């Protein structure tokens, strides 16, 4: 295995607040790392730093090359970021939207070539969006829209996929399907996935490794069995939960304090 992404003592300040403090980690090619932690822990900011969208101290290496000295276009060819609330202009068709994902491969004032159209077509086919290719984004359901956004990221042809709360807008079934989809993309296209996730059960079940963050620091790192404990969730999330490990799956269940 080779290293896809490396962060060394990354610190991010937004205004005066230090949002991320000395975060270091190494992500192997093909690995799925989930960033978990309570609101405001710095998950989104870390993803933005990995995509070169915020200034940071420390070093981030994508495929061995430092982000700080890479051009926007070089970074965009390495990482595709799916934000939690993507802008989806309602009057674009799915095909047009996915084609925008080819931007890092298109010259500054050029237009799409056949190669770009084929790549977009592949992404659309891969996410079973063919019947929707000419539909307007505004006419899609939440699950379809999520697939369109994933298709755009896939069309970017970047080996690293950054997902910010990829399932927050989806129902239970769609959440599972979306994550299965990401997992199959990861296996087939040998993508590396780093995702910020709210749902701890899903995070534990789908990722290879978890990074538990609290107030910008990594407080625990490892697989689900190591990171997801009732004690740590109680102390960092302030939540009362039961954690069940069963058949290699992990379930984190909220539990209401008993009132009598």
């Amino acid at each position, binding site marked *: 295995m080779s290293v896809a992404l490396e962060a060394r003592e990354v610190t991010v300040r937004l205004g005066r607040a230090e949002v991320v403090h000395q975060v270091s980690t190494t992500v192997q090619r093909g690995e799925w790392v989930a960033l978990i932690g309570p609101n405001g822990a710095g998950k989104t900011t870390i993803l*933005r730093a990995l*995509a070169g*969208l915020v200034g940071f101290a420390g070093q981030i290496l994508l495929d061995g090359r430092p982000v700080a000295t890479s*051009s*926007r*276009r*070089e*970074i*965009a*060819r390495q*990482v*595709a*970021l799916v*934000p939690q609330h*993507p*802008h989806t*202009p309602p*009057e*674009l*068709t799915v*095909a*047009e939207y*996915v*084609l*925008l*994902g080819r*931007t*890092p491969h*298109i010259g*500054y*004032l050029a*237009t*799409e070539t*056949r190669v770009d*159209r*084929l790549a*977009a*077509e*592949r992404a*659309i*086919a*891969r*996410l*079973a969006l*063919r*019947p929707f*290719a*000419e539909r307007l984004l505004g006419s899609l*359901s939440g*699950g*379809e829209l999520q*697939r369109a956004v994933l298709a755009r990221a896939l069309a*970017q042809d970047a080996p690293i996929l950054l997902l910010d709360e990829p399932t927050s807008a989806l129902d239970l079934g*769609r959440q599972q*399907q979306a994550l*299965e*989809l990401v997992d*199959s993309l990861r296996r087939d296209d040998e993508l590396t996935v780093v995702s910020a996730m709210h749902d701890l059960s899903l995070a534990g079940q789908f990722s290879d490794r978890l990074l538990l963050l609290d107030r910008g620091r990594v407080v625990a790192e490892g697989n689900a069995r190591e990171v997801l404990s009732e004690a740590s969730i109680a102390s960092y999330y302030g939540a009362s939960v039961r954690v069940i490990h069963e058949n290699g799956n992990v379930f984190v269940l909220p539990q209401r304090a008993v009132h009598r």
Partner: protein
Amino acid sequence: MVEQRERPLLSPRKQCAHCGAEFGCAEGAPGCWCESVVLRRATLAEIRGLADDCLCPACLEGFADRDRDERAGDATLALEGGASATGWAKAIPHAAVRARGVPPLWGLCAVLFVLGSMLFALAVGPISIGTGSIVESVLSRLPLLHVHSPLSTVDQAIVWQLRAPRVVLAALVGGMLAIAGSAYQGVFRNPLADPYFLGVAAGAGLGATVAIAYASVGGSGELLPLAAFAGAIFGVACAYVLGRSVGGVHNSGPLILAGVTVAAFMTAVQTFVQQQHSQDLREVYSWLLGGFASADWQEVALVAPYIAVSATILLLHRRLLDVLSLGDEEAASLGVDVRRVRLLVVVAATAGTAAAVAVSGLIGFVGIIVPHTIRLLVSTSYRALVPLSLLVGAGFLVLADVIARTIMSPAELPIGVVTAFFGAPFFAVVLRRSRRIGS
């Protein structure tokens, strides 16, 4: 419509919509068996009519066999999916993955609108000249055609020395104002953005006022366009620098406030200068309201290069404007240097607008209503919006100028009055009828 089950994606087995047989499918991924099947495009269209998805190998081969006999004679086979001249394509029944540019029908309408309005404008006036003769006169100017102009020497002079420069100038200015408006709305993602808003109007007004007031008597004719141009550029530069210093380049709010601030200040100075030189008020006033009464070929030659360069730059940015519609952050994550794009577009649009304003005065409203009318009627994609704005803006201002010079003939109405008086109600109707306002 019932949402498609998303499960089949994970299992590559599918049922053929034609014969019902089960078959394996790699969803169009490279290496899928369907890549080797080549069909006539007409046949492909027929299959797409049968099913949204791929058919099984047996069925597809059946269609391919039917086509194969006709194919034998075809020497050059371009097998790549896409527009092959020979009419053959890979069997992958993909939906067309392409970005809609200008819809052909609307594009044709826009071109006809420009040509029609220009022809109309050449024909209409105190002496009316038949459009047929004008077309022949135009053709007679083209080399290699050997058409003889039917116009008399006087008519010839009226058309070519009086009306034509005016029509061409109106077209150039109208196209420029509209395309600049659409570009500003794109980079600032604000439907009200327009170069006028960001200080062009106030700056040009100040420049022109100063030129008229302080230039030696009779000397303002040469100086006026230059002063207006410089003032316009200066106005936007002030607004941009001020807006940026308060962090306003990422969202348009502070920038537009900066524009309003700069405009207020410059208007105050302008009013003061006017107050001090009230004998020049009439001249300043008639310039401010805009018009093409003094148009000649020299003015056309003066602004055409600016407008051509500016419009070309804006046209080349139309895809990037679509990328910017995803927001700064997502555009940046797609590898776009958002600040550079924004600066380049603003500079190009401002320079072109300033040149247009320098020869025509302040003609309001074109940069707002033309792009929005196109948004509401045709498309919100900048790939369609930018080129169509250029064409429709040109036609619109040519027509407005015809109204300005004929409706109270021999007196002329300021063209700014016409654009607003006829443009506003028309836009209100468009707005009410469609009720879908793009951002």
